[in-house]
């Protein structure tokens, strides 16, 4: 069974700081992907980055990167040089190879102070 857990319901940072948001997951599959999305206050879901399970290298995309600890079934999203525009709710989501659904975590609401 798939399960995604985000234990930090809220987070905060100051402008320019690095922010780390944590996620853990459960899956019995060997091949899967972990996605990170940000939900804006309007409700829109914005894709940020994903990590495939077979890739041992941590993925990077602009100011976003992940710390992937496969053996612990844990993945963290790192936002460098955080800005007030980064405020929103961040969701971690799991998809298994061959499946058709994303299983989302409960999200972490981030506030970046100016």
């Amino acid at each position, binding site marked *: 069974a798939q399960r995604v857990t985000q234990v930090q319901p809220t987070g905060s940072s100051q402008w320019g700081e690095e922010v780390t948001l944590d996620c853990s997951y459960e899956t019995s599959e060997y091949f*899967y992907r972990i996605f990170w*999305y940000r939900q804006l206050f309007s*409700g*829109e879901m914005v894709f940020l980055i994903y990590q495939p399970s077979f890739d041992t290298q941590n993925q990077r995309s602009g100011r976003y990167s992940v710390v992937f600890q496969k053996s612990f079934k844990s993945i963290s999203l790192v936002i460098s040089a955080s800005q007030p525009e980064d405020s929103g709710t961040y969701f971690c989501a799991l*998809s298994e190879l061959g*499946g*058709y*659904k994303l299983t989302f975590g409960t*999200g972490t609401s981030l506030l970046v102070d100016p």
Partner: protein
Amino acid sequence: GPKVLQIPSHQIIDMGQMVTLNCDPVSNHLYFYWYKQILGQQMEFLVNFYNGKVMEKSKLFKDQFSVERPDGSYFTLKIQPTALEDSAVYFCASSLQGISNERLFFGHGTKLSVL
């Protein structure tokens, strides 16, 4: 970038009535999805639709729910009859390939209020 449009943004309806939520997916996408989000909670998968068929559905996709995309028009979610617990924001998403291969593009959501 590519956009998924959802119409309407907010729908208010009396319990027991029928409602249809409309989604205009990204033009060349082949896979379509509906997700349900209750306020303050995570997004939960309802259904995936491809080539005119439901490929996978969750327990939340009750018998009162149905989806279709007639002749490449809107991808719709119909609830008949509605119940109070159907109140939520419903998100449509689309992708060119199946989810395991790529990201989803989400719409802004339709807030459904069942009274």
